[in-house]
């Protein structure tokens, strides 16, 4: 029996934050959702509330079925076949995110840094470290997240401070005058619906130490994400204004290019690129691991562990990236468009888990019993074997 990995609450929170921060760090999509003006930073704050709302079903399920992994949970709620179908749907979502994010990162590297390098080389350089880390398992990913998230946060704060002298408060004024309540909420819903990182918690809560709270971990991750996202949005708006910022493919990198000072702090955007690249690999390795985990649950072969699927998933993503439509920015823009991406995330993060909750409510007696039985069986398995009884003297 292999020893179960334990992740701390901060590790899981950092994993969630690292993954969710990569969208604002890369595209800052909030600039292009309604009201698409100087109030974008308010939309970010409001979107956090919607993220909580959309994450509720998975939070409920994770709390209710704590101690069970996703495969076991879905099997108990909807049966063996149903469980596999649900896991397959989740797998499709995770693979979609993995491939779309990988392409996004590779295309952005090509667009901003390594314009003359072929796409396949960039994809390879992304895939090798992330696949390796994914094969190493949840513990490695958790520990890496603890390094990368503080690095990303520190870089973003550093650049915010560096850009202060060039920022103009007028760029975020007037507040709430040009946006309607409806626009702000639509923007917040679309932004909140992009945050799919509750899935990470749903999957990795299985590894969470018993003493750590799932809800606490969720709010910790969301707080890091919300705070850093507000800083990214504010920096960009205050320096560039919403009009220019929303033109840019990568607004924060464009912002980072503008700041600096004196003879020493010249072209320091390299630091942003460095942490952005680390964060991208982090996000991708989490999705690769989740994909491998779900695939192992679907295949359900005891000889095949989740690490055995990391390479095939990366290989599939690599092959996909070679297909002509995937090497185009227009494909990326389409996949990342508010409606497409938010709808897909919303279906996976909210509708599917909500359906599971409804099914659970219909069958709660049998589900509860099966859960208790499974947990008891697991507990017995984990207990050390009892020492055999001493033989009685004289054979009695």
């Amino acid at each position, binding site marked *: 029996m292999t020893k179960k990995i334990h992740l701390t609450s901060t590790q899981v929170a950092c994993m969630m934050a690292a993954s969710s921060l990569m969208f604002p760090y890369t595209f800052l999509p909030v600039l292009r959702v309604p009201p698409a003006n100087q109030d974008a930073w308010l939309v970010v704050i409001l979107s956090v509330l919607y993220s909580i709302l959309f994450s509720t079903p998975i939070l409920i399920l994770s709390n209710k079925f704590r101690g069970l992994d996703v495969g076991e949970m879905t099997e108990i709620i909807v049966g063996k076949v149903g469980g596999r179908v649900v896991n397959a749907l989740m797998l499709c979502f995770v693979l979609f995110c993995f491939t779309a994010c990988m392409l996004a990162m590779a295309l952005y590297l090509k667009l901003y840094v390594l314009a003359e390098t072929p796409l396949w080389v960039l994809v390879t350089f992304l895939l090798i470290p992330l696949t390796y880390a994914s094969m190493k398992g949840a513990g490695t990913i958790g520990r890496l997240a603890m390094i990368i998230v503080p690095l990303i946060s520190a870089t973003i704060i550093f650049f915010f401070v560096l850009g202060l002298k060039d920022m103009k408060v007028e760029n975020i004024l007037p507040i709430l005058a040009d946006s309607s309540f409806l626009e702000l909420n639509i923007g917040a819903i679309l932004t909140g619906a992009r945050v799919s990182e509750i899935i990470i918690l749903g999957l990795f809560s299985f590894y969470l130490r018993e003493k750590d709270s799932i809800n606490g971990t969720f709010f910790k991750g969301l707080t890091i994400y919300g705070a850093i996202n507000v800083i990214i949005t504010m920096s960009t708006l205050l320096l560039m204004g919403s009009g220019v910022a929303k033109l840019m493919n990568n607004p924060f990198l464009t912002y980072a290019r503008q700041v600096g000072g004196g003879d020493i702090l010249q072209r320091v955007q390299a*630091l942003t690129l460095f942490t952005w690249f680390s964060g991208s690999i982090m996000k991708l390795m989490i999705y690769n691991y989740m994909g491998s985990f779900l695939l192992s649950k679907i295949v359900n072969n005891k000889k095949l562990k989740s690490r055995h699927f990391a390479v095939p998933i990366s290989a599939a993503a690599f092959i996909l990236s070679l297909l002509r439509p995937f090497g185009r920015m227009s494909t990326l823009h389409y996949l990342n468009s508010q409606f497409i991406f938010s709808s897909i995330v919303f279906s996976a993060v909210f509708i599917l888990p909500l359906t599971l909750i409804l099914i659970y409510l219909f069958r709660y007696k049998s589900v509860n019993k099966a859960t208790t039985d499974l947990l008891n069986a697991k507990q017995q398995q984990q207990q050390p074997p009892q020492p055999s009884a001493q033989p009685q003297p004289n054979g009695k």
Partner: protein
Amino acid sequence: MKKKKMLLYIVVIGVLILSLTGNWSRKEPKHLAVGTSYLYDIDENGDIVITVEYLNVPAGGISTTGNEKFILMKHKGKTAPKAVRDPELVVEKDFFGSHNKVRFFSEKMVKRGVYDIFDFFARGYITDERPYLIVVKNEDPGIIYKSDKNFSDRLGDVVVEMAEFRGDKTLNGVFIRTMEFMRDYYTEGKQCVMGVVEIRPNPISLDEANEEDKPWKNYASFEGLAVFKGDKLVGYLSKDDTLSYRYIAQKVEDATLEFNVEGAILTAIARRTNVKVDVEMKDGKPEFEVTVHNKLMVAQNNTKYNVSDKDDIKILEELICEDLAKRISDSIKTVQTEYKSDIYGFGQQLHIKHPYEWKKFRDNWDDEHFPEVKVNVVVKTCIDFDGQIMEKFGQRNVKQRKY
């Protein structure tokens, strides 16, 4: 523990390698044609003509034989990205534009409009938004490269040094980065400006000097400001009129001002300035009040007043305020009537302070409303420092000081 240390070293080395190099190209610098300033012009057919000031790094990597630190090349094309890549195959190196410091524009070019070329600046991966934007006033814009580089090796360096070390300290000129121009373009109620350069004949003549020691024939003056409306140049502000823009739209620190005080001049350094623009709606029309707070240090006093005496200071402060307010008002009036282009951002202030009223004005702000709006300029000046002497120099028989 060892592994962790090793990882840390790798991370630190990675960061240093990435951040300490200014050149992210895989090519050696000696194989790159690094442009430090670009002059954009159009010819009679409407084609883009780009004159580039390249760093003089020989392709073989051996030190240059000539004294010049730059090489000038002219490229032509239908569009800027084509022209900048030398379609005539003149340059033997690969192009590297990320070290560009200045974008000069001919008057002809900016009068035609800059939408198209800014699409290239914002879109192209070899371009970025940091270079300064300057309009060349001279009929032959190429003359800028025949001007004196002063203490610098290249014209690009002259502009950067000037902008960074003199930019805040002058009221006579502006240095606008590409990003600032783009931001103002997208800001409601504000029009864009660019810096200006004019090449003038050098008044210094050293006929007896050796050929190599002779000064350049021309020098570059960066005074004044180019006024834009949308993406087109509509005119220039003189160095005196530029003062109003510098005060209202930009930061001013340690700028030297001359005040006319009853026919005599008082020169002072504006150590710290603070400008506030208020908007009030009167009879459905906006009225602006610009309040300028100046803290001055006297540099030279040619007036009859004693700048160390508090009664005299009070009189002087009133006279100075009146003079400066008039100069700023006149300059604003010039922009309102001659150019009808709100470079000060009064419309932006109206948008910020009266967002619902702004909706009535936004469509025709520059043409209809901005020229008509009333702008009241109030200057509040405080002479903080009288310098290192307590009385006017040269007045021997002045009466005993009052205190």
